[in-house]
């Protein structure tokens, strides 16, 4: 996908040069190559660091297939790699989902966490988890995914229902936050009446973490995320038209109703997938699209979608690395890292924007 992109950029280059816009091109190339470099660096860091220290030699041996057994192999192959992959795919998914929601609501603070999607998913996961556990059944990853998806869609459905009556998008965001609170309250209520063991399970899940990822899970999420992101990427043109506002998009021949449904569906699938596998993760969805816009100086969907995916993966890998290592061997929840690191970014972004508009 990346190659295809840069090729497109090259083709674009001819005309853009015509208009003396090389700096723009340079900026984009720099951004994507920088992101790729960072990605490799972070993967290397995440592979190498952890409670079990490993030498470069050991890692290389495992990577090249010379060593296929032993504790180091197990740790690397069955713990660290799946975790890195999960952070990569889910981080990308979060950022793309955030971009879609921000486009749809035309609001810079829209994101899966803010709109109550994560809370809705959490509520349904809690219900299902507690119900199944009381019968002695452990919830499967597919079951979690399904429950989180249903929850995300229900929360999103509520927000959409309100959006039919309310024209102001800022009110919609407020509504999403309120729905999030209601869902959290009900979840708390359930937890109060649940068994202790259930609570521990749910609590662990709701803190958000990439730990304990199995390869099977990674495979499932990779399929879902990649497929959804490719479809999203193919919708670049109508999404770009939608950025001009609904009226103009319709005038450009976009089927607005279809696009709206698709946008919501895709962003819900992405955030539901994340919530199902890693629990609610805050701020990546809101902050990353802003970061990408700031760095690329564009909001064009065909650049934003791959850009957000890459940057989301980078940010999430970084935050997960910190979550693992900062108080090692104790792990911090991923959301506490993302919140501390990214909330200030969002605030700064808002202030900058406010100044620009005036």
């Amino acid at each position: 996908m990346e190659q295809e992109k840069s090729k497109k950029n090259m083709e674009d280059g001819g005309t853009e040069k015509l208009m003396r816009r090389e700096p723009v091109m340079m900026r984009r190339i720099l951004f994507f190559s920088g992101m790729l470099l960072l990605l490799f660096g972070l993967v290397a860091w995440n592979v190498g660091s952890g409670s079990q220290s490993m030498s470069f030699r050991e890692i290389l041996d495992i990577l090249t297939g010379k060593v296929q057994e032993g504790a180091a192999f197990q740790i690397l192959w069955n713990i660290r790699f799946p975790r890195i992959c999960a952070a990569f795919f889910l981080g990308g998914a979060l950022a793309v989902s955030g971009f879609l929601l921000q486009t749809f609501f035309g609001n810079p603070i829209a994101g899966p966490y803010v709109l109550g999607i994560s809370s809705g998913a959490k509520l349904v996961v809690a219900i299902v988890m507690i119900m199944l556990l009381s019968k002695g059944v452990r919830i499967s990853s597919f079951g979690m995914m399904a429950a989180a998806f249903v929850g995300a869609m229900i929360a999103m459905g509520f927000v959409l229902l309100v959006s039919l009556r309310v024209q102001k998008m800022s009110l919609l965001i407020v509504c999403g936050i309120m729905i999030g609170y209601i869902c959290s309250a009900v979840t708390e209520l359930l937890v109060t009446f649940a068994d202790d063991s259930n609570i521990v399970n749910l609590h662990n899940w709701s803190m958000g973490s990439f730990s304990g990822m199995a390869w099977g899970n990674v495979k499932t999420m990779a399929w879902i995320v990649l497929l959804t992101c490719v479809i999203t990427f193919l919708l670049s043109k109508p999404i770009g038209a939608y950025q001009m506002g609904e009226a103009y998009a319709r005038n450009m021949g976009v089927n607005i109703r279809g696009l709206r449904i698709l946008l919501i569906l895709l962003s819900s699938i992405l955030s539901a997938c994340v919530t199902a596998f890693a629990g609610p993760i805050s701020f990546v969805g809101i902050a990353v699209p802003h970061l990408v816009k700031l760095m690329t100086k564009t909001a064009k969907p065909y650049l934003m979608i791959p850009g957000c995916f890459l940057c989301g993966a980078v940010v999430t890998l970084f935050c997960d690395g910190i979550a693992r290592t900062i108080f090692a061997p104790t792990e911090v929840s991923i959301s506490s890292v993302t919140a501390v690191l990214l909330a200030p970014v969002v605030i700064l972004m808002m202030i900058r924007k406010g100044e620009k508009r005036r």
Partner: protein
Amino acid sequence: MTEKMGLKTENLSVGYGKKILLSGVELEVKAGKILTLIGPNGSGKSTILKTITRQLRTLGGKILLMDRNMEELPGEEIAKTLSMVMTERPTPELMTCREVVGTGRYPYVGLMGILGKEDWKKVEKALETVLAKEVADKSFYEISDGQRQRVMLARALCQEPQVLVLDEPTSYLDMRFKLDILESIRRLAKERKIAIMMSLHELDLAMKVSDEIACVDGKGISRLGTPEEVFRGTYVQELYGVSKESYEPLTGELFLSSKGIQPKAFVIGGGGEGIPTYYRLQREEIPFAAGILFENDLEMAAARACASKVISVAAFSEMGEEALKRAKECMDECETVFCPLTTFGPLNEANKALLEYAQNCGKLKNVLE
């Protein structure tokens, strides 16, 4: 060949949701022509335009685009035929004006929405047409309302439409931009044979730029015809619900009307020289009488609207003793007299006599104090 069709509505009903606001709307604009909708605020001009551009659902009747029922046309085909500039401004993030104009090419470009060389050339041409080249590289947020309006017009042109719908294209613009935009619109209709349907608030401009005018009165189209037909008589004043005096259809001037009964000042005017004094007195709420004016005087409309009493005589006739007598009587009842009039000739000798009379009474004042 018969005249080429542009846009036509047949027994169209429009409104919000399911509530019909206007019904029986029959409008037609052919290639190269300009049809302007006028009417008071809230009368439904925008509702009609929004229905035609499919932002609102058609609540009855049909819209024909190039002789074909619009409801049966696919969105993309409509996009290549009809484009628009509405009153809501889009808020595209991080886009230069050139890129905003480029979005007009969307119906023509491929899956990713990336513009090719030819497309960018068309963008440049559109920017040239609306005289907005100098803002091309600026952010859409940075530029003024007038520039933004031009950029949006360029965007609409990029769509290579045969029909252009414009909702109040001159709102918020100063007179230079108003003229520029309307000149561009006029040129587009004539040179590119685009059928243009728009709404305007400035009646004087509507009169000058439109081939046809449709009056929208909140129920339907109440009058349709050439500007001469529509502005004949006092129909426009009725449409907007204003008094006969407050609007002058020939020039499109608007006046605030004064309702003072007993004049306190007398203004000797003529040839337009009295107008600033009329406005000044009106602002200071001093009721005044004006005279002696010819019926066709340049300032007659202003005098009728602002003065509580006007002494006038038939056009190009001598003012005569009778008018002078009436004027003197009126002046006797006033406390002050102003004489902004400076040119006197054989036809308005009576005004000279009036000036002398005022000087003798000691009522004449030069400046308002």
